[in-house]
């Protein structure tokens, strides 16, 4: 097949166009809903099948597939092409995106069943897949950037999907604007690389860094600029504030975009540019430190949240931090491995949360849940498996990738250190704790539901529970794939000094112990109901308030950035610049014209004879003048 990659990318776009253009008409048509479902879910599944085919092809031949779909611009010698590139890394990402994307589409059939904008939802989801696939498969940074912006747009549209509520619209805006800040860094990084190499093709840039003469550009500078972009998209400190608010969107969106795929774009970008980051120890250190800080702080916040989706959102931020730590210490394959396992269990958790919310008719507060294990058993079991997976209990998926990250954080010769390991281990402990806390509060403690809600709790339809079971199965066994070794030809493993190898087994045992300790801690605090946790919260009231309010980061941003900006815009730009300077000068000109006209209009007396006299005077003046000048 000659246009395999183009097809993979374009098929979801076709779905978006079909459903998007005819959304309102389809809602009225008799088979409209079926049509939307078939197109909206069918095309991503075909895309997935094609991605599998491409994957098999490169697994057999080993070489990358390159496809140029279209030459965008030809400027002198240089051409900007929309080209797609499938190697092992992008194949893995494409499989995650289309695979997890497809099952979440199927889940949405049940979840969004009663929504009046059913077609619009599928159009947006397909649009997201299109942009995400061009991000993942794009050969040059330019195509990647188009996809990057496009997924931002799709994310904005979907966060504000229920835009009747101003809070949702505001959350969408916040996500978009926060991402813009990161994008500015990304763009600068792109300019810098283009200036240095004259190309934006990532394989060529990587090759230029790893072999050949020393490039004229500082790898660390370019690396840090690109990482600013990555930290915006992947919600790292200080640009993490948008992701928890993004949970305002429908739950399948939270699962697909804000957990499994889009937010890992930053991780993908850094892994894709690994050739650059290998030459940039300072940038790598920044990546590792930011990742570790984000992982730690987000985990502490997650411990105190009470909204089921907010807990999962902060857990996502924290897990993304884990991935960046792996990238920062040079274990790129391991970072992607965590992207892969995280996609399964986090999608499962979010969709499970969606199933819970669906069952409780929209309730998201875990303080008003409890005792759901018996009532919605499928959701409970799948949620429990995914929880154990993210907590790192062997042999579930999360254990393998997280243990690899911890090991590399400890032992990598490219920035690993015991301190980094200790921070990450503490984070892993908290991860296990807050995830099991969630499990207990939602499913196992005695019910705290309002009787009206409790009365009609029901298990979700098969299209939802089936997806949960698939994802739970993948969360269970997905870690058995040795992904870092599969990616090794492309992303070399981090070097670890021989002297540290005898720590490997003790560390492995320790990380299992951490996961179990988190489980035990959650059981101890929440096993007997909510009294003990309430006592704890009362004893550490100040700390609890700090964590519950997310370290007041939003408030601090509002005070340090938001208000000064508003003041500056209002006083300087609006009042001084716009009103006084611009409006003032224009109004002044208008007034001048008006006054001159006022003076001159006196000549227009309306007296015909006077005009004739003027004509006479003019004629005489002309005659006199022409006589004098002969």
């Amino acid at each position, binding site marked *: 097949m000659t246009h395999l990659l183009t097809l993979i990318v374009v098929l979801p776009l076709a779905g978006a166009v079909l459903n998007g253009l005819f959304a309102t008409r389809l809602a009225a048509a008799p088979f409209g809903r079926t049509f939307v479902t078939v197109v909206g879910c069918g095309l991503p599944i075909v895309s997935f099948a094609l991605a599998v085919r491409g994957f098999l092809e490169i697994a057999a031949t080993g070489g990358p597939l390159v496809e140029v779909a279209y030459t965008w611009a030809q400027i002198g010698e240089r051409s900007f092409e929309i080209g797609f590139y499938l190697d092992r890394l992008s194949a893995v990402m494409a499989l995650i995106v289309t695979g997890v994307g497809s099952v979440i589409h199927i889940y949405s059939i049940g979840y969004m069943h009663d929504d009046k904008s059913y077609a619009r939802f599928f159009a947006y989801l397909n649009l997201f897949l299109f942009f995400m696939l061009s991000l993942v498969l794009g050969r040059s940074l330019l195509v990647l950037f188009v996809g990057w912006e496009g997924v931002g747009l799709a994310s904005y549209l979907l966060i504000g999907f229920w835009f009747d509520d101003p809070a949702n619209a505001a959350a969408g805006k916040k996500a978009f604007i926060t991402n813009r800040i990161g994008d500015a860094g990304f763009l600068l990084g792109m300019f810098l690389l283009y200036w240095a190499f004259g190309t934006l093709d990532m394989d060529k840039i990587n090759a230029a860094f790893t072999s050949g003469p020393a490039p004229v550009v500082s790898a660390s500078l370019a690396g840090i600029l690109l990482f600013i972009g990555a930290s915006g998209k992947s919600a790292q400190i200080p640009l993490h504030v948008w992701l928890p608010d993004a949970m305002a969107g429908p739950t399948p969106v939270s699962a697909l975009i804000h957990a499994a795929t889009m937010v890992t774009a930053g991780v993908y970008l850094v892994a894709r540019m690994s050739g650059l980051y290998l030459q940039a120890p300072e940038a790598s250190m920044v990546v590792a430190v930011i990742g570790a800080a984000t992982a730690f702080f987000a985990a502490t916040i997650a411990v105190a949240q009470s909204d089921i989706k907010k807990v999962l959102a902060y857990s996502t931020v924290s897990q993304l931090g884990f991935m960046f730590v792996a990238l920062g210490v040079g274990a790129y394959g391991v970072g992607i491995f965590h992207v892969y396992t995280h996609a399964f269990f986090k999608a499962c958790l979010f969709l499970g949360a969606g199933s819970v919310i669906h069952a409780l008719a929209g309730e998201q507060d875990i303080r008003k849940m409890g005792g759901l294990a018996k009532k919605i058993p499928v959701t409970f079991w799948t949620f429990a498996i995914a929880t154990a997976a993210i907590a790192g209990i062997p042999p579930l998926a999360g254990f393998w990738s997280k243990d690899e990250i911890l090991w590399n954080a400890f032992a990598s010769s490219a920035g690993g250190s015991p301190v980094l390991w200790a921070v990450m281990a503490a984070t892993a402990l908290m991860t296990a704790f807050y995830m099991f806390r969630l499990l207990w509060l939602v499913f196992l403690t005695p019910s705290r539901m309002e009787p009206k809600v409790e009365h009609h709790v029901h298990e979700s339809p098969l299209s939802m529970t089936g997806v949960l079971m698939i994802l739970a199965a993948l969360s269970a066994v997905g870690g058995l794939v040795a992904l870092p070794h599969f990616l090794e030809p492309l992303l070399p493993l981090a070097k670890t000094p021989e002297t540290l190898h005898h720590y490997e087994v003790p560390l492995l045992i320790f990380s299992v112990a951490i996961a179990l300790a988190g489980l035990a801690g959650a059981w101890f605090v929440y096993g007997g109901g909510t009294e003990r946790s309430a006592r704890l919260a009362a004893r550490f009231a100040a700390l609890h308030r700090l964590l519950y309010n997310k370290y007041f980061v939003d408030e601090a941003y509002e005070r340090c950035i938001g208000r000064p900006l508003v003041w500056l815009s209002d006083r300087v730009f609006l009042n001084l610049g716009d009103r006084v300077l611009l409006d003032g000068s224009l109004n002044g000109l208008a007034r001048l014209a008006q006054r001159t006209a006022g003076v*001159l*209009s*006196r*000549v*227009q*007396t*309306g*007296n*015909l*004879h006077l005009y*004739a*006299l003027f004509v*006479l005077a003019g004629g005489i003046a002309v005659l006199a003048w022409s006589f004098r000048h002969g």
Partner: protein
Amino acid sequence: MDKVQFLLLVAVALFAVGLAGVIIRRNLLVMLMCMELMMNGVNLSLVTFAQQTGTAAGAVLVFLIFVVAAAEIAIAIPIVLLLVRRKHTLEADAFGDLKG
């Protein structure tokens, strides 16, 4: 005083009488007539100069001007008629509505 000078003097006199009429008289119809006088003064000078230089074109041009003037007055008179219908007066001062 030869013939040419005499004719030119008559032309200037016609023009001056017409101009004075336009400036002094208030009646629209009289003003129009005075304008005709001015134009005929100019016409006369044109014919005179044409005679002096011996070209036939000048004489032909005068006929053209007569035709155009007839057409022009055929438009001007109805306009005056409409104005009079509106204000019931021929006084030019009555029509100063557009003054600044």
